[in-house]
């Protein structure tokens, strides 16, 4: 058996293509072995003195398949992140997405407190754009890091993965039936706090943001401003939402379990709360530290009024983010496992 000139060239081209698809030290050796196999195969099919032409060789190569397919058999890692690392990858990705998206939300809120451009739509669009590109970068970077870990720790035990395989009873989720149960003490406490809050809001509304203080000298009391006009304007809404929250908790206490009504009620309240928080943030400053100035004219504390208000804004921003995360989880749960 002898290859003619065209067939010889075809064989060389085929082997060159296989070699290009391979990587590593052994590629020349692998290609030599495939060549040896092909000659063995041809020798068996064609008599000793026969000339093999391009067409006949092509038929044999077709049986082998494309160079890519042949080379793929020798490459152990035909995946980016394998089943060994995937559970850890998912957990890290989730946490990092939450952290980065949270930080972006927070920075959006802070930069708008410092300097509001005046157009809510523009701010929202820019914010969505940042979320999208930030989220994509997180996914890209984490995937890249895990692809590297996958290739550098092949066949080794990774402690974090071993830990994931261990049973931890406390991490098991509650059964859906159990999730419907309510904690009577918790709900009662929430009702109490809600009522205290409502009394407080009504009082502040009545005094116009002033609170009493007692002078050291003889017990005579005077009023001093604690809350700004901006805050007082929003009190009716705060009052209404707190009232709705208390009503929902009373409903829970009476019926004794969570159902679709109380769950959706809660979701709606979370949305309304978040909107109120946005308005509160855009109305900063909400309180003054005049109280300290009255007590002591050169009070150091009173100087930090701006910082204290900004701090409150940041806390409220975190509140919005927490609400959104909770809301997504809650709606997801409700869709997977609807309450009756």
């Amino acid at each position: 058996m002898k290859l003619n000139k065209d067939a010889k060239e075809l064989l060389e081209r085929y082997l060159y293509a296989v070699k290009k698809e391979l990587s590593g030290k052994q590629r020349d050796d692998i290609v030599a072995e495939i060549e040896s196999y092909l000659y063995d195969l041809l020798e068996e099919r064609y008599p000793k003195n026969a000339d093999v032409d391009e067409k006949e060789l092509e038929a044999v190569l077709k049986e082998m398949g494309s160079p890519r397919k042949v080379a793929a058999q020798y490459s152990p890692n035909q995946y980016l992140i394998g089943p060994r690392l995937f559970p850890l990858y998912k957990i890290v990705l989730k946490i990092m997405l939450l952290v980065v998206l949270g930080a972006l939300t927070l920075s959006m809120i802070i930069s708008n407190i410092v300097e509001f451009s005046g157009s809510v739509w523009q701010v929202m669009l820019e914010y969505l754009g940042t979320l999208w590109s930030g989220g994509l970068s997180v996914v890209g970077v984490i995937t890249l890091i895990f692809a590297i870990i996958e290739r550098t720790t092949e066949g080794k035990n990774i402690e974090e993965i071993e830990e994931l395989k261990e049973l931890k009873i406390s991490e098991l989720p509650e059964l859906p039936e159990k999730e419907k149960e309510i904690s009577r003490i918790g709900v009662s406490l929430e009702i109490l706090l809600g009522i205290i809050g409502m009394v407080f809001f009504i009082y502040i509304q009545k005094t116009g943001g002033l609170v009493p203080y007692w002078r050291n000298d003889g017990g005579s009391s005077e009023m001093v401003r604690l809350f700004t006009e901006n805050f007082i304007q929003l009190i009716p809404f705060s009052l209404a939402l707190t009232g709705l929250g208390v009503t929902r908790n009373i409903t829970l206490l009476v019926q004794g379990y969570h159902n679709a009504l109380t769950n959706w009620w809660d979701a709606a309240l979370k949305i309304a709360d978040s909107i109120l928080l946005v308005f509160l943030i855009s109305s900063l400053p909400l309180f003054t530290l005049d109280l300290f100035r009255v007590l002591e004219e050169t009070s150091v504390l009173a100087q930090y009024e701006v910082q204290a208000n900004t701090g409150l804004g940041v806390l409220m921003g975190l509140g919005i983010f927490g609400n959104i995360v909770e809301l997504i989880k809650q709606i997801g749960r409700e869709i997977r496992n609807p309450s009756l």
Partner: protein
Amino acid sequence: MMNAKHDHELEKLKQEMRRGVIVLAAMSQLTQEQYGYSLIKTLNEKGFEIGQDTLYPLLRRLEEQNLLESEWRVEDPRPRRYYRLNDNGKEMLQQLSENWRSQVEIIRRLLNETK
């Protein structure tokens, strides 16, 4: 339609069952020196169908695991790569064969129960 799906599943399960046995089949024929093509032929003649796309990567893996040794030798008319089990591989073959026989016995008993 139903039949096509059934046949597809059958083929998948058969391949899954075969995957573990290929190592044993290849090792069983390597107590004596063989080159790749002759090993494929021997296995096929004895009823165990296997192609170069499965066998060659497997031989490389076994060599990496220090069960085989190989060398290129120029014999008429071209160079060929010859494989044979080393001592470690022979011991492994012995242990795997014992394990295989006991598995076969267990499965035989299990299948008899279903008759």
